[in-house]
């Protein structure tokens, strides 16, 4: 039975258990399981213990926030002052930022206890977390399979009870897809709802940080704590959500309009299709109205995503040249050569592929045909989503067209992997919020995730529908036995 934030908070606040004891339980579990699972790449046990002691002080005073003393993890692309942050890349080896990401500042103020930084695809580029320079994390549900990516370590940590919650980042599905592969909940907020200051950039107009948890309510609690405008991120929005989203999750779905677009179901695994349909029927039986809708622009979503994300990435990653931080090659004849060698030795293959694609689509002669065209189609996709949300409150779709891949799946070309992002990528392009919740297992026992997509800044409805489904559907996947037992 996996820990939930509110239950733990109650036990901490009633002093039934101390933050120090709770943290120790997680530290012991990590020491036991992480060598196999490889969910964490940097451990911060000293920091965690000190934070737990401080949390106990806060708890003693009474009136501590819900998240106070709760052990958690951060994806390794979120900057933590004085703590190693590498994006799981050789080129950021030993990099210690001297500033905190805004989300981490906020969570620290809530008394969060950081256990460590989690494994990920290098620079968040990938869908399996296998491009990590630290080797892939393993799916706790079946260690012959991948966790998904790029926030694979964050998903695995939460799934295996090695963290109560974690933060991931999502540019084309990197929170939602690993959440679905590992059978946990993952929320990608509206673009701009959470500050990107301190998130090491991949696709600047697509990236968002979000919670990965064991329940929808937990996702709401964490989102409440990290959301908000930030003067250090001009793209962030100080949206007035009114009250706490975690406290207003209960809502009757009667009369709600649920949009189902056939474009999301094109070519997906039939097992997945049937589980999603089952879930939709459940919601319908409770009074929701199912609307069949069309989103024809989705057909171009994948190349649009890759063009825009890689263009931005090729520019964002230009700064890794060994001069101010990170890895620097040891022998060279000129500074120009130093830079080329550092980058060629420091970056992995997938990162290089995406930098090259990004350079190509921005280069003179190709800019109009690729980058500009992709931006124009992006606007079209946005318009289609806007139109659809006039008729629907939320959309329901699969999170991924497949369940977890086997590890080291040979024969999958880069493009084949890109194609598996089909269900998640349109959401980032449109900048709307979406959550993935477990809704079943396939014949191999691997989790299946369902996506609930809402309109901009309507995380409230997305969370409400997800919460309703979670409560009504009951147990949809098997329990993970292991990890911190408290």
């Amino acid at each position, binding site marked *: 039975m996996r820990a939930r934030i509110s239950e733990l908070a109650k036990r901490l606040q009633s002093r039934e258990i101390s933050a120090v004891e709770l943290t120790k339980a997680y530290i012991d579990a990590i020491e036991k399981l992480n060598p196999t699972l490889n969910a964490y790449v940097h451990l911060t046990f000293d920091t965690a213990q000190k934070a737990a002691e401080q949390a106990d002080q806060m708890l003693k005073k009474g009136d501590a926030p819900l998240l106070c003393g709760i052990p958690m993890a951060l994806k390794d692309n979120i900057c933590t002052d004085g703590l190693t942050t590498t994006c799981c890349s050789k080129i950021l080896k030993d*990099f210690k930022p001297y500033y905190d990401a805004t989300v981490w500042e906020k969570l620290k103020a809530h008394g969060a206890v950081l256990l460590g930084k989690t494994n990920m695809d290098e620079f968040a580029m990938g869908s399996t977390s296998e491009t990590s320079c630290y080797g892939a994390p393993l799916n706790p549900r079946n260690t012959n399979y991948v966790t998904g990516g790029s926030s694979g370590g964050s998903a695995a940590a939460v799934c295996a009870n090695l963290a109560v919650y974690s933060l991931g980042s999502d540019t084309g599905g990197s929170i939602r897809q690993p959440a679905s592969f590992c059978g946990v909940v993952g929320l990608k907020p509206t673009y701009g709802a959470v500050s990107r200051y301190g998130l090491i950039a991949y696709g600047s107009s697509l990236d968002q940080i979000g919670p990965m948890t064991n329940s929808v309510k937990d996702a709401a609690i964490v989102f409440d704590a990290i959301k908000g405008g930030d003067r250090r991120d001009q793209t962030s929005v100080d949206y007035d959500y009114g009250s706490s989203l975690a406290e207003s999750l209960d809502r009757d779905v009667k009369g709600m309009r649920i949009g189902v677009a056939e474009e999301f179901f094109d070519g997906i695994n039939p097992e997945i299709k049937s589980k999603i349909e089952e879930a939709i029927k459940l919601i319908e039986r409770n009074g929701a109205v199912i609307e069949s809708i069309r989103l024809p622009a989705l057909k171009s979503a994948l190349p649009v995503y890759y063009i825009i994300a890689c263009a931005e990435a090729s520019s964002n990653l230009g700064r890794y040249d060994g001069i101010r931080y990170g890895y620097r090659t040891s022998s060279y004849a000129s500074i120009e050569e130093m830079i080329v060698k550092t980058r060629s030795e420091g970056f992995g293959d997938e990162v290089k592929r995406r930098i090259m694609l990004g350079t190509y689509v921005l280069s003179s002669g190709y800019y109009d045909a690729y980058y500009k065209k992709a931006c124009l189609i*992006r606007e079209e996709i946005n318009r289609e989503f806007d139109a659809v949300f006039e008729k629907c409150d939320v959309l329901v779709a699969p999170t991924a067209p497949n369940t977890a891949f086997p590890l080291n799946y040979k024969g999958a070309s880069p493009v084949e992997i890109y194609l598996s992002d089909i269900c998640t990528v349109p959401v980032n392009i449109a900048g709307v919020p979406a959550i993935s919740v477990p809704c079943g297992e396939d014949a191999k026992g691997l989790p299946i995730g369902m996506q609930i997509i809402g309109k901009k800044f309507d995380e409230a409805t997305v969370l409400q529908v997800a919460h309703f489904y979670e409560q009504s559907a009951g147990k949809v996947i098997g329990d993970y036995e292991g990890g911190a037992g408290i």
Partner: protein
Amino acid sequence: MTISKTEIEKLAKLAKLSFSDEELERFTAEFDEIIAFADTINQSIEGGTEEIRNVSARMVSFDDLRPDEVASSLPNEKILSNVEGDNGFFSVERSKK
């Protein structure tokens, strides 16, 4: 369309990356496939016709821009904390064996 080796070398130069001959062989094939994949946008619907000015539709008004007030900079040791600085400077040896 097949991308030529010269074009890839040109891109690599811009991206400040270098590939061995064997890597270049393998890479060119993969890159071809990726470009063909990117090319599929040309089969799709027309987008709008305006110039793209910014990927986000939001605008900010002049009045909401950051006021010109000095915030304290960080101390030199922090700025250099991830390298071996030299008298307060970032330094790179111009060539090294």
